[in-house]
Structure formats: C-alpha cells, structure tokens
C-alpha cells in the first residue's frame, strides 16, 4: 500500500527543475542533462500512473516508459553529435551564441569553417 502523491510530486519537482535548467544553462551539454531530467519526470509519471490507475491494458504505462527511454537514448545520441559538430565549427558550446538566421556566418572572427565542412552541414540542415 503506497501513497501515490509522493512519486507524483517528486516527478513534478523534477520536471520543474528540468525546465529551469533548460532556460538557465548556456552550455549545450548541461542543456541536454536538463532535458534528461524532464524526460525522467515524464517516465516517473507514467510508471506511477500505471501503478495507481486501473487500466484496460495492464502495464501499458511501463511499456510507454520503456519507449520513452529508447527515444531519450536516440535524442541524446543525435544531440551530442550536433553539439560536437557545433564545437568543431565554433570552439564553443554556448547555446546563446548560435546564430539562428539561415545564412552561414561570414566575417565573424574566430570561426574556421573549412569548405569541406560547410557542404555536409548544409545538406543535413535541409
């Protein structure tokens, strides 16, 4: 016999912490860690709901939690590839220095974009 409010509140607090981290952190790796916190909060909600609510399909909440874990693994793989590419291009992983305009930067000091690098980056971006 458990009180479901305890894990639910824990999950809510973890989600709030993740939101705070995503908005607050500048470093892209720390940003990914905060996203992991949020995904874990969602997983905790799913598992707790599966435990506390009688569903038509038993254990479906836990199956969803497994799916979310797989998606998180895929997300962190691609995310880290992007972060490493960013670091290679700009020698920095500060997310608020990333230009969001469509054009590739020109005349911006300190960015060594080799011509061979630009082509695959563009191809992937499209």
């Amino acid at each position, binding site marked *: 016999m458990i009180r479901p*409010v305890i894990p639910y509140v824990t999950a809510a607090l973890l989600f*709030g912490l993740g939101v705070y981290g995503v908005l607050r952190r500048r470093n892209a790796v720390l940003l*990914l860690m905060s996203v992991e916190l949020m995904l874990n909060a969602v997983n*905790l909600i799913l598992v*707790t709901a599966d435990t506390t609510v009688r569903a038509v399909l038993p254990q479906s909440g836990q199956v969803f939690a497994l799916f979310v874990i*797989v998606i998180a693994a895929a997300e962190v793989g*691609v995310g880290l*590839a992007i972060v490493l590419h960013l670091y290679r291009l700009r020698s920095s992983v500060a997310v608020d220095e990333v230009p969001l305009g469509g054009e590739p930067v020109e005349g911006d000091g300190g960015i060594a974009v080799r011509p061979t690098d630009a082509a695959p980056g563009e191809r992937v971006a499209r």
Partner: protein
Amino acid sequence: MTGADVLLLALGAVAAGAGLLVVTTRHLVRAGLYLVVCLAAVAGLYLVLTAELVAWVQVLIYVGAVVVLLLFAVMLTRAPIGASEDLDRPGWPAALVGGGAGLGLAALLVDAFRWSTVELPEAGTAERLGTSVFGSWVLPFEVLSVLLLAALVGAIVLSRPEIGAPAEGEGQ
C-alpha cells in the same frame, strides 16, 4: 505511512536534491555525476513502484549509456575541470518559469490525489512486460526500432563531415 511510503519519500528527496544540484552546480563534470545519483534514485522509485524491468532498463541505459555519452561530450568539448563561471545565463525568468511549472504541477497533483492510498499491483516483470510489448504494442515497438536506426545513422553522418561532401563516386 508504511515502509514503502518512507522509501518513496527518501528516494524522492534524493532525486529532487540531486536534480537541483544538476541544474545549479558550477562544475560540468559534477553535474554529470549528480545526474547519475538522480537517475539511480528514480530507478529506486521504479523498484518501489513494482516496475522491475523499467528500473533495470533505467540503470542500464540511463546510468550506463546516456550519462557516459554525456561525460564523453564534456570531455570532447574540452570543458574545464574546475568551476566555470560562464555556465549560466542571468535569469530570474528561468526560476520563475521552472518554479512555476514544478510547483504548479505539484499543487495540481496534490489536489488530485490528496493523501489517498493505493494497493500495489502485480510486479511488472520482464515476462509480463514482454507479453504486453509483443502483444498490444508491436507496431510502436517496430517503428521505434526504425527511429533508433535513423538516429544512429544521423549521428554518424553529423559527426563525420567528410561523408557525402566531396566525392560522389567513392563508396564511403
């Protein structure tokens, strides 16, 4: 308050405390290690909630793989070992939005569940979850495998700039 409640409270406090340290610490590497503590505490919560398989998958994939990947990224981006001062944006908006989201959701859930009790169901063992995955959720499972493959290929293409760029003829 039963024993399970006490365990849930303790593990929840550990998870929330470690999560707070993840988003506030000034050391990049320590943030990754606090994340390990947080994820392990969440795995403990899964165990108390009788989700055995999810707990072990959490330990294997999150603590074993995702955190290692994150620490690799910390290493490859030449993060400083000591405290760094430029990790944070100055931000009351972040505290406002994050605290609002967390406390708002917590208030909502407390209001919904109060201090009610629930009997624990049968444990989510690998056998039961496997029956469920391959019985009711086969299509999402297969789609997910394709997604994972696509993510892996995408990560490889992203991290190797020479792929696809100069030579169309080379079988790279």
